[in-house]
């Protein structure tokens, strides 16, 4: 993906409110480098490039969150795209700070058996990163306390789907609460669906032709 393509995609996600209008944060991995939005992306559309192995900033001024993205790419080699979702219901659930359990099959399939909230009020940056990675284990996303969610996947399009499905899961949790409460899907069935989706169904768009 070229820098221009990446910028166009980021603008598309900003227009859909997947990414924050004020501080959009997104990155993609390209071999041994990552491309990430800069601190000033909202005003100047600038990107920064970072060496994945050494962490050296090769160009631009990356968003402050770049160390988290670097660690996710290092610890989860299958991921090649990360979005910091700022969607409404996702943000509501991140403010509440409790784990969101799937009440819809598609959340279980695509996000995983739950979306846990990572507290980022620890004293060190390294502590925050460690906590977020722990909460993401076996999942494609984690809510960030009072700050939306980190969503990742093997490409940018799939990362946006994770963000959209997480939003739907959070919206269902919030709105079903308003009509007396939703029913959670059994944890074992959630794990089974996530496993089957990851292994088989997610590849159907390419294979089933």
């Amino acid at each position, binding site marked *: 993906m070229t820098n221009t393509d990446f910028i166009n995609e980021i603008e598309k996600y900003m227009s859909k409110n997947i990414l924050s209008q004020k501080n959009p944060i997104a990155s993609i991995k390209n071999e041994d480098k990552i491309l990430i939005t800069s601190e000033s992306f909202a005003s100047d559309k600038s990107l920064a490039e970072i060496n994945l192995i050494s962490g050296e900033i090769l160009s631009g001024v990356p968003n402050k969150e770049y160390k988290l993205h670097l660690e996710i790419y290092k610890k989860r080699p299958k991921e090649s795209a990360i979005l910091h979702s700022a969607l409404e219901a996702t943000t*509501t659930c991140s*403010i*509440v700070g409790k784990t969101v359990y799937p009440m819809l*099959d*598609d959340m279980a399939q695509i996000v995983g058996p739950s979306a846990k909230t990572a507290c980022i009020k620890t004293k060190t940056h390294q502590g925050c990163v460690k906590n977020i990675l722990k909460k993401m284990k076996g999942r494609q996303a984690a809510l960030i306390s009072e700050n939306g969610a980190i969503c990742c996947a093997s490409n940018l399009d799939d990362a946006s789907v994770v963000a959209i499905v997480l939003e739907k899961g959070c919206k269902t949790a919030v709105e079903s609460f*308003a*009509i007396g*409460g939703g029913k959670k899907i059994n944890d074992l069935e959630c794990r089974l669906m996530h496993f089957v989706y990851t292994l088989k169904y997610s*590849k159907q768009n390419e294979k*089933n032709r």
Partner: protein
Amino acid sequence: MDINLARQTLLDAGIKLVNEGLVARTWGNISCRIDENSFLITPSGRSYDQLTLDDFVLVQIEDLSYPAGIKPSSEKGVHAEVYKNRPEVTAVIHTHQMNASTCAASRKDVPATDQEFKKILGDVVRCAGYGLPGTKKLKLATSKALGDSNAALMANHGAVCVGKTMDEAFLVAKTLEKKCEEFIFSEFANISGIKTNKIKNIHDFYILKKKRGKK
């Protein structure tokens, strides 16, 4: 229905389904009855915007068999059960629409509130019991919940909408979404005492209650 007409109907319906926000990407599925023995359905796991006329799969109602090659939607059994029990139905849409999904997550039946609801959907939209996607349990539960109405909720999953034509099935899906939204606000007013049609009020209520520790 003529099979070539059915292919074009499904191609157009897939795009409409996404454009109207009833599904996203590869989710949901649509079918058209061809005759008393078979129906044509969307393939498994494919994006609607990439489909061609040749991608739809002919499935036999009785034994769910289909020609070698492209796999049909894993929910073909739900469609077959509808065609088996409802001879007048020629179009079935399985959606993941938002408001219906919220009601389905609550596993609540949505009762008729006005003449529009009764005329288009029936006296009540029932919620089927839960079954894992693609299973016999889901197929039978959905068929039972649908009965002789035009829509049913699928617990923790979405909705199924039927019609004598594809346009009619779409009208059912759109009406269902509107009526489920009205149901959510009406139930919210009963529970919270807040009469509103703004989602933000529901979100604020959720934050307030959850922060106070209500489960």
